[in-house]
């Protein structure tokens, strides 16, 4: 399987890349300014003025990003008519109640483990990671996804589980009909 970028991942890379470059530029600019001799009182006067606005900006960002994110949480609401697919992880295999599903199926993966912690990570036929949930012994985590795209979905383990962790995989077929 060769993974590829999806829309959220591209957004993450672009935003992080831009912020990192901006930060690197700021640090380079400040480093260049260290050779000057500026009275500390002047630095403080301007610095404190900017700092209040910097704090206000970050607080607005916090409320916007964290507040906004709470409206698109991946957690299952539980009350919905979805096709329940039971998934159980073990060293080093996945047991899945369905081998194949029709495209467009609204699935609720009911994920657990028979031994140690595993991570249920599902990649679409284009190799994009479309979601993950932990498989824990003694607990059932429910992951809701709609599998629109026909093809072969790859399921890998996203929680280190021992010697053959990297080999723990399975396929789920999503058919046209």
């Amino acid at each position, binding site marked *: 399987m060769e993974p590829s970028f999806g829309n959220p991942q591209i957004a993450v890379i672009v935003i992080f890349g831009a912020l990192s470059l901006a930060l690197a530029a700021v640090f380079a600019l400040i480093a260049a300014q260290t050779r000057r001799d500026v009275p500390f009182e002047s630095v403080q006067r301007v610095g404190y003025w900017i700092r209040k606005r910097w704090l206000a900006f970050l607080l607005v960002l916090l409320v916007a990003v964290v507040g906004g994110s709470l409206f698109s949480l991946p957690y299952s609401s539980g009350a919905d008519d979805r096709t329940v697919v039971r998934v159980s992880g073990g060293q080093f295999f996945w047991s899945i109640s369905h081998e194949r599903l029709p495209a467009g199926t609204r699935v609720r993966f009911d994920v657990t483990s028979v031994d140690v912690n595993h991570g249920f990570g599902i990649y679409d036929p284009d190799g994009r990671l479309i979601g993950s949930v932990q498989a*824990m012994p*003694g607990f059932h985590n*429910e992951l809701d996804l709609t599998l629109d795209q026909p093809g072969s979905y790859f399921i890998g383990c996203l929680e280190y589980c021992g010697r053959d962790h990297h080999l723990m995989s399975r396929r789920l077929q999503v058919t046209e009909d």
Partner: protein
Amino acid sequence: MEALAAQVAHPKAAELAPEPTAAERRVGWLFAGTGLALFAAMGLAGLTMRLTQADVIGVSTSWFYRLMTLHGAGMLTGALLAMMGGLWFVLRQTVPLRLERALWSYAAILAGALAVVAAVLVGGFAAGWTFLSPLPFESAGEWSTWATAAYLGGLSLVGVGFFLFCLDVLTSVVGAYGGLARALGLRFLAGRDDAPPPPQVIAATVVSLEGILASAVGTTILMALIGRTIDSNVEIDALWAKNLTYFFGHSFANLIIYLAAGMVYALVPRYAGRPWKTTKPLVLGWMATLVLVATAYSHHLYMDFVQPGFAQYVSTTASFAAALPVAVVTIYTGMMLVWGSRYRWTLASTLLYLGFAGWAIGGTGAVIDSVIPLNFFLHNTLWVPAHFHTYLMLGVVFWLMAFVVHLAERAAGRPASRLATILAPAGMVLGGYGLVASWYLSGALGVPRRYAVHFPGTQGYSLAGSIAAAVFAVGFVVLLVELAALGREALRRRRERPVEHASEPPARAANRSGVLGAPLADELELGSVVALATLGLVAFLPAVVDASEASPQWHHLDHAGQFAFGALLGLALGCGVGPLRRRLARGPSAAAIWAVILAPAAMLLAMVPGIYEALEDRSALHLLYHVGISALGVVAGLGAAGLGRGVGRLALVLSVGMAAMYAAGVSGG
């Protein structure tokens, strides 16, 4: 001395920082030198892993996961040790820390590190440094129980060393500054203190409080897991274990950065020639950090959908908010200090400056990962090592190197050569950022972390990362070569002219004993504790003991009650009985500190069903066992009585809390 200062520091540095004493230099060298050596060894393990993922070399998967476990545990231990030394170095200039306690911490951590090395290299332990239960007991034939016990025991010793350090720092700063509120800068914040402690003291106080909390939680999970190695019937709730493990691990990793920040507060002024003063925003920032470090850990459990929702909401808010004090106070003030300061650029100060950038950029990657809908796509992908290597390797480790070079440049009386000052940081910045960029990109692609063999088609990222890591290694070797040259120079100077160590000034010579106060100050408090202890006797009533046999968890809760009874009794004895009170009031003794560390750990180990089951058929022995649990409580209570009002009460509450926490998650047997 002024000529020396002009060579290796800002001309005004001598006015801002006292000369370090011999003890401070030695502890600095010992801790940071060991940390740097561990970084070098674990870095080689890391490079080996990356080359394996790139298909350049053929390390077996068994050995890959062993190296992965060793790399994680070793790097964190090395960085922790080094930054403990760095903070001790700068803190002792205002707070009377004791050399022998620092050496005990060092010895415990070193012994722990050796046990971890033996568990991994000899025993084959490879459950990852996070030892997520029940993986340590499900080895798929890779390691045996003794290796698990050695690893967990080793990590416990590392925790004991840090616990001891935190207790010593906390009792010392509280004693030196006349109370916890003043040491935290709260009285200054309230306008009732004109002379607040310097920033490194506030940082040290917050780190120590957080460190004690993390150590208590860490001891609970580690003792529960060690108990499982003794009695294989012990059952540990997986979600409970995950919460405790990540609280402990997350706090430890975070506190390394905050330990380093405390050191940086004192080092930057030596190159900028401007003092880093305590301000109200700084105090507020550290108070926020105190709360946010403890509440952010649940982001490690975002993809555990059974984790209570409120913990996820608090965590995502706290994880984002934790960046605010860093961005608005520490890094921002650091940049104000250097702006237009005629900053003295040496190898040490260059690395110091670069560390800020690593913290800022890595922190940004971490904040992105802390947003739950984005974490859905990034959880346990290579994005995670990408961001933590940015702020640890390119942040904390740069500060670690800066500290060692700072010591070396001072000892040699000259700055590092111009060539090394350019080449070492250039190689490490180019290689370091290249390495983390390979992880950021492949992490966003969904490539999982902790895979010995990567998905087909993604090995190119590992190859690029390996080349970048090799470039980092070249820069690091240049730094080591320069350190060796500075070391030779320092030895030559020492032979020609013995080093004039600053003498111990009176303020550092002795603790202001008595300032700590007693956990129970008057008859009312004493009477209340005696009444509570009397209530605790309920845990011994035959009817209660019999009823608790319904399940191991209820029985553990009964044991917790018996321990609480003993702890309260010990506290009351320590504060109420004249000779004991007078002895304990002399100041926090080593015995008192060891008592609050070891007695709760022993109590948790004694709660392994395999140990006490054999006694249950004989009522006298069973009663004796319960009395023994209480006796451990008495020891913890007496220890708490010797640690002063704030710290003693905290230690007591945590020791009883550990017993209650254990009861919540451990069953079976």
